[in-house]
Structures are given as structure tokens and as C-alpha cells.
């Protein structure tokens, strides 16, 4: 039972991550592999505040959102000058630099040792400690993230995002401030990833930089792409499938050391297969077709 609940909590966290990345990649059409960097910064800010300042959970989440949002501006602004595939490399660069800072700034982050004994959240006297309570907390945030994102993409704001995705020059010509929209989308996406990070840090109560690597970023973008870019239910479905499928491997008796590799092989192969036969993913409406192949 505990195990099952644990899976559900993980799914909830990945729903927040993939829904927020879908806003950037699926709706605005900006492929980014820096999402684990936002996730990690959020987790570290929340964890460090809880450990060093003993401030309550909600204020930690709030600060994580603000700081990661500012980081989102830093990553988002280059998207105005750097395009398409080159921007993917730029987000890769941000991802590697973030990991390297988390790993090497030992006096603050304690580096590869990680941060142990992160206090569990307490919200207005409600101490969240059991798996059930965490599921409730993560569930609330996941639903909130889903609803906020749906509100965004169905609003006029969201229509401009799709216009930017389909034809940026046209959106500009229609008098839309494309630059502001792009940066704002990164801020919103980063802020939501920060929430996921804070939840993860207080749920596991231990974080180290290896949870926030390039591979994690690729995993999150895989959820978005396989679920379906530009469709929020797709991201939910993608999170369920990509979290549950590898867990099923445990039951066919693979040893743990092998299972980690087999899990990655599965989602790598899924990525290739979807690109070959169904580039829009399960439910998606967008297929990263920018960049004419002639």
C-alpha cells in the first residue's frame, strides 16, 4: 500500500512538472531541456530555507517560486535571440551549469553529499507526514497546477502562445509583444517546477544534485512529448505511463541494477518510436515541425 501511494505521489509531482513544461514546449513551441534545473533550484531553495531558517512550508514554497521565477527570466530572455535547435543547446547549457553549481557550491548546497533531514511540511498546524497526507498535499498542488495551466491556455493569453508557436512573425505582425509572452511563459513554467521541487524535497526529506541532471530534464520533456505536446491531459497520461511502466519492471523480477538501465532504454526507445510513427504523442496536437528540411 505504502508503495502504491508512493507511486501516486511521484505521478503527482511529475504531473506538475510536465504540465508546466507543456506550457513552454507544447503551447509556445519552445523546446527546452532545462526543466530539471528549475525543479532543482526550487527544491534547494525550499530545503535550505526549511533547514537553515526553519520557516514554515508555505513561505518556503513562495520564496522558491519567486527565486525560480527570476531564474526563469534568465533562461527565457535568451530565447528572444537564440532560435530553435540552438536554443535547445542553450537550455542544455543552463541545465549543466545549474547542476554544476548545485554540485560544487559546497558551502551552501553541501555538494554531492546532499541535504539530509529536510523537515516535513506543516501547514497551519497540519503536519504532513504519512503517505496519505502527502498524496493529498501533492494532489491538491497537481490539480491546482493543471487548472491554472488550463485557465492560461484557454484564455486569450493562451491563444497568443499558440500563435507564437505556429507563426512567430505573424504574431508579431498582429501587434503582440512576443518577447514579453515568451519570457512570461518561462517564468510561469519555472515557478510551477519550483512547487514540484519543494514538494519533492519535503516528501523525500533528502535531496542531492543527481536528482536534477540533464537526464531528468530529458525525462520530463519525454513525458510531454510522449503524452502529447499541446494537450494537458496528454501530460497527465504521459506522467502516469512513464512513471508506472518502469515500476512494472520490478514485478517481472529484474534486479535493481539492471532495472535502472532497462527503464532508460524503454523511454529512449519510446521517444524514437513516437518520433517515427506518432510525433504528436498520444493526445497531442503539435509536432515540433519548425526547421524546414527541404
Amino acid at each position, binding site marked *: 500500500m505504502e508503495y502504491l501511494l508512493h507511486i501516486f505521489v511521484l505521478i503527482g509531482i511529475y504531473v506538475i512538472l510536465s504540465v508546466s513544461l507543456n506550457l513552454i514546449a507544447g503551447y509556445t513551441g519552445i*523546446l527546452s531541456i532545462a526543466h530539471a534545473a528549475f525543479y532543482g533550484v526550487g527544491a534547494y531553495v525550499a530545503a535550505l530555507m526549511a533547514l537553515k531558517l526553519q520557516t514554515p512550508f508555505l513561505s518556503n514554497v513562495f520564496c522558491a517560486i519567486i527565486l525560480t521565477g527570476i531564474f526563469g527570466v534568465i533562461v527565457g530572455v535568451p530565447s528572444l535571440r537564440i532560435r530553435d535547435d540552438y536554443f535547445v543547446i542553450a537550455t542544455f*547549457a543552463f541545465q549543466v551549469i545549474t547542476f*554544476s553549481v548545485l554540485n560544487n557550491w559546497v558551502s551552501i548546497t553541501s555538494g554531492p553529499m546532499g541535504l539530509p533531514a529536510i523537515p516535513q511540511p506543516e501547514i497551519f498546524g497540519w503536519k504532513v507526514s504519512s503517505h496519505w497526507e502527502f498524496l493529498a498535499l501533492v494532489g491538491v498542488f497537481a490539480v491546482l497546477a493543471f487548472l491554472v495551466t488550463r485557465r492560461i491556455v484557454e484564455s486569450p493569453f493562451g491563444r497568443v502562445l499558440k500563435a507564437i508557436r505556429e507563426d512567430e512573425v505573424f504574431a508579431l505582425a498582429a501587434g503582440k509583444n512576443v518577447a514579453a509572452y515568451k519570457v512570461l511563459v518561462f517564468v510561469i513554467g519555472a515557478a510551477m517546477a519550483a512547487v514540484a521541487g519543494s514538494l519533492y524535497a519535503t516528501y523525500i526529506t533528502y535531496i542531492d544534485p543527481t536528482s536534477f541532471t540533464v537526464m531528468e530534464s530529458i525525462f520530463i520533456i519525454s513525458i510531454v512529448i510522449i503524452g502529447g505536446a499541446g494537450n494537458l491531459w496528454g501530460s497527465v497520461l504521459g506522467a502516469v505511463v512513464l512513471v508506472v511502466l518502469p515500476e512494472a519492471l520490478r514485478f517481472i523480477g529484474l534486479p535493481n541494477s539492471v532495472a535502472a538501465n*532497462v527503464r*532508460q532504454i524503454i523511454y529512449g526507445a519510446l521517444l524514437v518510436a513516437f518520433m517515427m510513427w506518432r510525433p504528436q504523442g498520444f493526445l497531442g496536437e503539435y509536432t515540433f515541425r519548425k526547421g524546414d528540411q527541404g
Partner: protein
Amino acid sequence: MIQQIIVNGAISGSVILLIAIGFGIIFRSARFFHFAHGAVLVVAPYAAFQTMKWVALPLVLVLPVAIMTATALGTGIEVFVYRPLRHRKAGSPILLIASLGIYIVIQNVVSLCFGDDTKSIRTRIVSPGYDLYGARITGIQFITICVAIIITVGILILMKQTKLGIAFRAVANDPKLARTAGIETDSVILWSFVLGSAFASVGGVLMAMDTDMTPTMGMRALMMGVVAVIIGDVNSFIGIALGSVFLGMALHLGVWKIGTQWQDSIAFLILLIFLLFRPQGFLGKKIKKATV
């Protein structure tokens, strides 16, 4: 001290160059970021490792097998994945995502077969190396620099003098126009995968002979190659060579002044600065902003 930094920078620069040139050839003809290049270069030294286990031959005789295995892998990826995708008019982001997937699969297959720990294909004891104007250099490092120079000169001659080189430049310049002129773009791209993968596997083997190997070393090596290609100039092999040497020197200067652990950050900061302020690289001419 400064001599040692220059020598070390030249050695890293040479390894980066081998990977960057291979990546550059593929990038120019096929026009997307071939991430799986980083997996191809890892397969070569592991193939050598496995062959040496099967047959007790010296490394020199095993090398052709290793390089051929990795080259066949790179070429196979093109034939079975990228080409069908291109024929379906897939854009470069789709190819990029697919190549990420392939990278993940190959790297983990290597991890499964050989384990994540460091493996060695060095046959001799580590030698103290030779003295070069006050700097130390080992035999294999000297060979690395020579191989890098030979391959760079070779590719420059190939591009200028041969039919394949001319066809390649035509495809790199404008694939549609090249096809109208009767050039088979698919076969040119195929050849660029053959050459690119071969260079990458030479680079991978030399890396492993110098500092041993792990299954995950490919991604970092590839990214250094990508950084070199972007800060040099995508469209010029001399630019790529300059970018690689510059990056190698910058990394070792960084090690000396700041510390080894910040190497990756230095490389990617350089990349970001170039992408933002000089996306055409050292040598590239400023072009008009591309229309979207």
C-alpha cells in the same frame, strides 16, 4: 607551468576537435543536432575492449574492428531512423528528439553490458612521458595531436579536391538546389555519417587510451564538441579547429585558475556568451536574421 597548460590545452583541444569535426560534418549536411554521436564515440572503445577479451591481439590490430563497429552503428542510425524521418518531412526538432532517444538507448545498453565502472583498454603501464620544453606529454597524447592534425588536413583536402567534397558543400549550402542539380542528397548525407562516425570513434578510442572510459563519457565529450563547433564556425572546418583549440586552452586555463570541478560551467558559459553575442562563431560572417 604555462608550457604545461598550452600542451594540455592542445591535447584536450585535439580530442574535442576529432569529435567536433565529425559532428560538424553531420550537422552541415543533415542540419540537426545528432546527439547520438556521443553514443557512437563511446561504442568504439568498448568494442575494442570486448574484442581484446575474445581474441588476445594487441590493441593496434583491434582498433580497425572497433572503429568499423562504431562507424557501422552511426551509419545504421542514419539509414534506419533519420532517413525515414527525413522522408516524412520531419523537422530538425523531431530529428533532435529522436537522436536523444537513440543516445539514451545506446548508452544504457553499453552500461548494461559492461557496467558503469571505469574500464581500461590501456595495455602498458602509465609512462611519465617525454619532456617538451618543460612540459610533460605521453606517447598517446602526442599521437592524439598528430591524428587530429592529419584528419583536419585530410578533411580540408577532401572538401576542396574530391567530387564527394564538392557535392557535400553543395548539400550543406542548399539541399533543394543540390537535388535539382542532380546530387543525391541521401547518399551525401550517408557518407557524412560514415566519415563523422569514423572520426568520432577515433576520438573515443584516443580518449579511452588516455584517461580510460565510462559509458557516460560520451555526452560530455559530445557537448564539448558542440561548443567548439558553435564558437568556431559551423560552416568552416578551420573555424571548428580554432574553436576546439581555443576551448581546450580555456578549459585548462580554468583548471589552473579556478579548479577542475568548474570545467563544464566554463565551457557552457563560453557557449552561452557566443550564442548570445556572436552566434556565427569566430570566423563566420554576419548573416541577415533568418526569416521564421
